[in-house]
């Protein structure tokens, strides 16, 4: 067991584990940041998406050890003092149904808007294609991203 110093949502924190301990479980079990969800454990669904240095990664496939010295952002840290534009848009469009995949969807969408503030619909669909939603909220996710891009 080793201790890793991480910067999560702007705070310095310590987590323990071995070299392979997934960031997902360190966030959820040790830091109580449960907005990041476990869906498949194999990088197939996107429910566990967080940002490492602004890049959307699957936290189930990312070790906590590999995040040392990098900035980790979870859904809880996305909107720092107020709701992020995407969260406002998500609420306005009433995108979530069961809601379980939505943290990952929003984090993935935030990566897109970070790079491409005014994405086309095709860019949105291509970027979001790896994030699964079983309830079928895809049309509203797309609309919410378009709204966030519009209303910023």
């Amino acid at each position: 067991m080793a201790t890793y110093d991480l910067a999560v949502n702007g705070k310095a924190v310590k987590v323990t584990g071995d070299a392979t301990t997934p960031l997902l479980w360190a966030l959820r079990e040790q830091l109580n940041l449960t907005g990041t969800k476990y869906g498949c454990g194999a990088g197939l669904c996107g429910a566990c998406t967080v940002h490492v240095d602004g890049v959307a990664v699957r936290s189930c496939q990312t070790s906590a050890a590999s995040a040392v010295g990098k900035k980790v952002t979870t859904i809880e840290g996305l909107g720092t003092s107020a709701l992020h534009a995407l969260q406002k848009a998500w609420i306005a469009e009433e995108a979530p149904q069961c809601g379980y995949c939505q943290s990952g969807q929003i984090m993935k969408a935030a990566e897109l808007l970070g790079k491409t503030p005014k994405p086309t619909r095709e860019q949105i669909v291509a970027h979001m294609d790896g994030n699964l939603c079983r309830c079928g909220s895809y049309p509203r996710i797309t609309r919410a991203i378009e709204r966030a891009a519009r209303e910023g």
Partner: protein
Amino acid sequence: MTTTSTTTSLSRRTLLQGSSGLTLAFAFGVTTSDETAAFSASGGRLNAFVKIAPDGVITIVSPALEMGQGVNTSLPLIIAEELDADWSKVKVETAPVAEAYNHPILRTQMVVGSLTLRGFWIPARTAGAQARQVLLDAAATLLNVPVTELTTEPSTVVHAASGRKLGYGEIAAKAKAPDKLPEIKPEQLKPVAQFRLIGKDVARHDIVAKSTGAMTYAIDATTPGMIYGTIARAPVRGSGPASANTDEIRSQPGISGVYLLDHAVGIVGDSIAAVFAARQKLKATWRDAPGSNMSSETARAEYQADARNADKKGTVGRNTGDTNAVMATAAKVISGEFTTDYVYHAQMEPHNALADVRADGTVEVWTGTQWPTRARDDAAKAAGVAPEKVKVNVMQMGGGYGRRASVEYVVDAVLLSKAAGKPVKMILSREDDVATARLRPMTAHKIDIGVDAAGKPLAWRHRFAADTVVPYLYGPARMEAQKGVDHIVFAGADVPFYDVANHQAEHIYEERGMRTAAWRGIGAGHNNYPIEVMIDELARIAGQDPADYRIALLKDPRAKRVIERVADLSDFKRKREGRALGIAFAKLGLPPVGFSMAGTVAEVSLDRASGKIKIHELWCAVDVGLPVQPSNIVAQIEGSLIWGVSSTLKERITVKNGAVEQTNFSDYEILRQSETPQMSVEIIRSGDIPLPVGELSISGVTPAVANAVFALTGKTLRQMPFTPERVKGALA
């Protein structure tokens, strides 16, 4: 707003007979002296469903279980409507497990069949109206005026004659609770025309928490001293471990216990990462069970043979007229055969529960379930305590779709906690969630339709061979009580809205030892596909357009209307270059509660070389009776259409040696963003009662797509899902 699970224990004092025949239990304080105390002494509780705090905050205790369908907003909204509540002051609390919150039709606390609003429609309004009447009566005393001079506006009682007003919070703070709750008669309910919340798109109260990561699911629950666990269930139903490398597993880092249970191997440890890592090292041998030799490929052919073989008798679940006699006299009999495969729920939150079996004989459980009563009772049985010793914290579900009406994962958590002597959060890995899938049955259908010389259907016989669900989900006694009719598998096999005088539907049981469950849309998902493909065939025989033919053959005006509307929306008769349209009718409901209806049109193209179908656009006109929250209805209809597309094109579980062959989203693919068609939904209001919504629009997709593919190719797709290989096979 937040959702919490209330811990208030209810003592039943006064019973009120609702107009639906439902007995509503109401509660105040626990002793006689409390009953004359101020409402504030009992937490502002007006009845089992409404509490009002002195600051005017109204807590509505909701028996609706939220899994994404929005009922934990729409049911409280109905109560708030009759209460005349200021919605901005309403908080929603999920009801504890108590008889007072039983579903009025299902008579247990359960959310299935898209029946929540329909079942609670009158009881919920009655509860809201009763709470309002309590406030009016109390205000009359406080203002010393006759109650007949009082009216309400949102969260306020008004005495127009004197211009005085009292806020609901003020009344709750000052007034005494009545000795007896007022009885509300149906005619005292608010006229539908005066609704100001229902039908008006009030925001869902769970949306903010679900957009910020703050919503708490069972997988997020914690309790002091908690450890983690998982269950490696026998791959075949009824089997269990014969042996396992328990010593090796126990020696893995972070592992504190390994248990050979009758049906599974349980592993517990100090982190879920450690538990999952140890799970991957588990080597177990399993006892044989009845399903150990089951192969879905072999079985499908046997199901088909059984459906075809008239000597193989099944259970006749629907029978009108004299099908056999009329069939024998028909000018011509047309027949069709179809199959559908096993499918998995693929809810995004893998099964889990947190259980704390304590030394003092009490048990606490945190879980997402569609059936809290069963969760409590099964947890009690597993822990060896009485049900009243079990407290169930009913959590938001990360998807349910019928799967969470089964509660075996709650039992597993209880067994692990009992064995470990600590609270255990049991989580299944996705691989184990798939491996222990409870499937929608595999089905094989044969439909025979006797037609007259003009091609009009006179007699319709639908035989389907399929696994059963009811005996496994509810127990054999329920099946017996229903005279052997498995209503979950049977759903949608009748054709009551078509003008077919003689109709018989028969279910040939295929008991192969498979784990089964209700799956979103239940039987309609496999039964409506062959029915609506055959309707297109009848239209061709009659030489008519498929929309016109349906409108003529449907005898119910609401049914005609959804087809007329969807044909209009989709401009059905306009030819599309390289693409074609297909249409289907669908229904959801039960005769005593009423049916919602949908007309669906799919626009598809086909890559003949690869066999890949592309669904470009879907139109859906739905008649849902009274639409309570139109925007949420659109979300549910779209979500169900997407579910329908996913199951039509992709989803398929195969079984070998009794075990599920798929493992994760890599080999059980569900629909993605890029595969999602354009969708247009039109809601038709047809009355003053909300009808089933959440599963309505699934069963029209498959036949609409099959009918569109026929329009393109002249070939009928007879095996669902319509995978590229199968499409190529059908075209060859």
